[in-house]
């Protein structure tokens, strides 16, 4: 049951219960999807539940969109661990459902799982989320799609910087890996472009989904005086709800969490996977060769911002819209020198800048000046 934003009304759920007795809360079960031979069967695999208000929901929204395309039938499987399970799941979609295009959406599915299946099924297209595909190294029937979401995190930071009174921001992250560090840094740099006194306090929880720990992290940040918070965990639900309950502001991540924090939701960094999904599906239907390396930012429509919340001041909106307009034109450089990390070491020299496509950014192993924390 995927609702793009917001939630099913109580009446809908109650109607479902009424329809099928007390156990019938699952009334929205759809009938068996037609697996007609003349349709393009697309398989989508999620690592977690697809209604998590986060990473998996963002993917599921794209799957729901391509489901509406004529001639496309979609089979989905959720909570598939990054073990031989996912290899067999890809195999089942190919062998049992006739899928010819598969989206294994978790980062850890790529190596070795998807690569092994791509070798076994050379005629099937595999499109992986994460940006690992390398020319000459990986097979032609595989590819990766990814978005420069640090652009959105920069805008999140900008809005946060305009909103914060205490000049202290908080970031709750699962693991200190390059993708996450890039978001933390972009968020901090966005905020510090408003006021260089601003700092971001970082808390690492250690895993992608730990609700109680995430709530504790949010509470201790708030106790330390943080008044705007964001995160990079699989499901931002708990962080957003805790912030709302404690009366501070929050920037979303992965999907739109505005419904969870009507008072404090400023804006959010969202994936817009509909763009790459549609491209891959169209190419597959037309029989065109697969585009192996698909990525983009705001300009290309791979990522988007949540609509501003009530708490976002006009001033902050104007400032963010200004930078966003530049990003939409293309060529906006976030990581440009002189840039120091939080130990004082220069990480980007004066006069150089890393464009979004620069692979150096994918090996990020530092926290920029202003982040309180250690890698």
């Amino acid at each position, binding site marked *: 049951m995927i609702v793009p934003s917001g939630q099913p009304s109580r009446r809908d*759920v*109650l109607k479902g219960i009424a329809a099928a007795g007390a156990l019938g809360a699952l009334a929205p079960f759809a009938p068996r999807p037609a697996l007609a031979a003349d349709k393009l069967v697309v398989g989508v695999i999620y690592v977690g*539940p697809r209604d998590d208000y986060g990473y998996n929901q963002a993917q599921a929204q794209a799957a729901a969109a391509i489901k509406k395309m004529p001639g496309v039938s979609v089979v989905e499987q959720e909570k598939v661990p990054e073990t031989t399970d996912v290899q067999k799941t890809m195999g089942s979609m190919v062998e049992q459902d006739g899928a010819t295009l598969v989206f294994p959406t978790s980062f850890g599915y790529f190596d070795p799982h998807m690569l092994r299946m791509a070798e076994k099924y050379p005629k099937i297209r595999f499109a992986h989320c994460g940006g690992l595909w390398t020319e000459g190294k990986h097979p032609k029937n595989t590819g990766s799609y990814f978005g420069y979401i640090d652009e959105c995190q920069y805008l999140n930071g900008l809005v946060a910087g305009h909103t914060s009174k205490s000049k202290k921001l908080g970031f709750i992250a699962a693991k200190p890996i390059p993708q996450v560090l890039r978001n933390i840094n972009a968020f901090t740099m966005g905020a510090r472009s408003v006021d260089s006194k601003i700092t971001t*306090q970082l808390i690492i929880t250690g895993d992608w989904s730990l*609700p*109680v*720990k995430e709530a*504790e992290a949010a509470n201790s940040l708030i*106790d*330390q005086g943080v008044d705007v918070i964001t995160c990079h965990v699989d499901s931002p639900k708990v962080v957003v709800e805790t912030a709302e309950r404690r009366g501070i502001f929050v920037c979303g991540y992965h999907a739109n969490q505005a419904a969870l924090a009507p008072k404090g939701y400023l804006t959010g960094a969202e994936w817009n996977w509909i763009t790459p999904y549609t491209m891959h599906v169209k190419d597959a239907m037309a029989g065109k060769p697969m585009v192996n390396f698909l990525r983009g930012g705001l300009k290309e429509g791979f990522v988007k911002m949540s609509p501003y919340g009530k708490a976002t001041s006009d001033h902050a909106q104007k400032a963010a819209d200004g930078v966003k307009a530049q990003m939409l034109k293309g060529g906006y450089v976030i990581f440009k020198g002189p840039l120091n990390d939080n130990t004082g070491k220069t990480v980007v020299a004066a006069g150089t800048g890393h464009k979004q496509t620069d692979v150096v950014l994918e090996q990020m192993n530092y926290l920029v000046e202003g982040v309180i924390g250690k890698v």
Partner: protein
Amino acid sequence: MEALGWWGVPIAVLGGAIRVSTPFLFVSLGECITERSGRINLGLEGILVMGAMSGYALSYATDSPWAGVLAAGGTGLALGLLHAVLCNLPRVNDIAVGIGLMLFGTGLAFFLGKPYVQPKAPTLPAIPFGAWSGSPQIRAALQVNALFLIGIALAVALAWAFRNTRWGLVVRMVGDSSDAARAMGHNVALVRTFATAVGGGLAGVGGSFLSLYYPGSWSEGLSSGQGLMAVALVIFARWDPMRCFYVALLFGGAGALGPALQSVGVTSGYYLFNAAPYVVTLAIMIATCSPRRTLAGAPGELSINR
């Protein structure tokens, strides 16, 4: 909000102890009753998750979080009863049934809970015990949920009841020696059934705290093994309800320590910090156990003591 720096750590640990300990407290009190009667129920994890789900669902359907708490207790009672009835059968192993129940409970909760992941149910209110303080941190740390207070009252009442009531005496006797209890004319199976069902009910209420107060929503990753940990916690507490309360506070506080230390800049070794409560429990078990005698306070009939 004024920053507290290092002073924030004890306040966060105190707040965390109050926030995080309640599920531990309820589950361990429930397990305490069950184990005192001579049975162990490892399935409380499954009951906790079922309680969290059914509590949230009922709160959503009725608009009343307290109805949710009741529903969670009822669900827990029913599952506890299932465990008890199965274990009353000859040769059926209580630990194995517990593991089966863990699987069944979590599976059923995930299955039936699907439609409730997205909707927002009304949650339990907090009592602002910190209203006297000018510090927002202290005010937040002392936001206490009524279930926490009920839990304390329950611990006190249970401790008293085990010592001073006929009912408490019977449960203990059944747990210490079923032969003696039988000789006294007590129905051992019935007492154990009752104790296990009540234990399940309390675990269900503990689960509703997770979904209806803290963190306060239903999702499949909600429990990170609190129900399983509570079983170890009871042994740590030597089957004493008051000690269950202290140990639950300790576990809650220990869970808050990691994030609190990071928020003041102690950033390395967070995995090891997170494992601290387990290491401490193990260390205390090693220090207090002896191969020559059973643990002080241990029910003699408990399968894990024989």
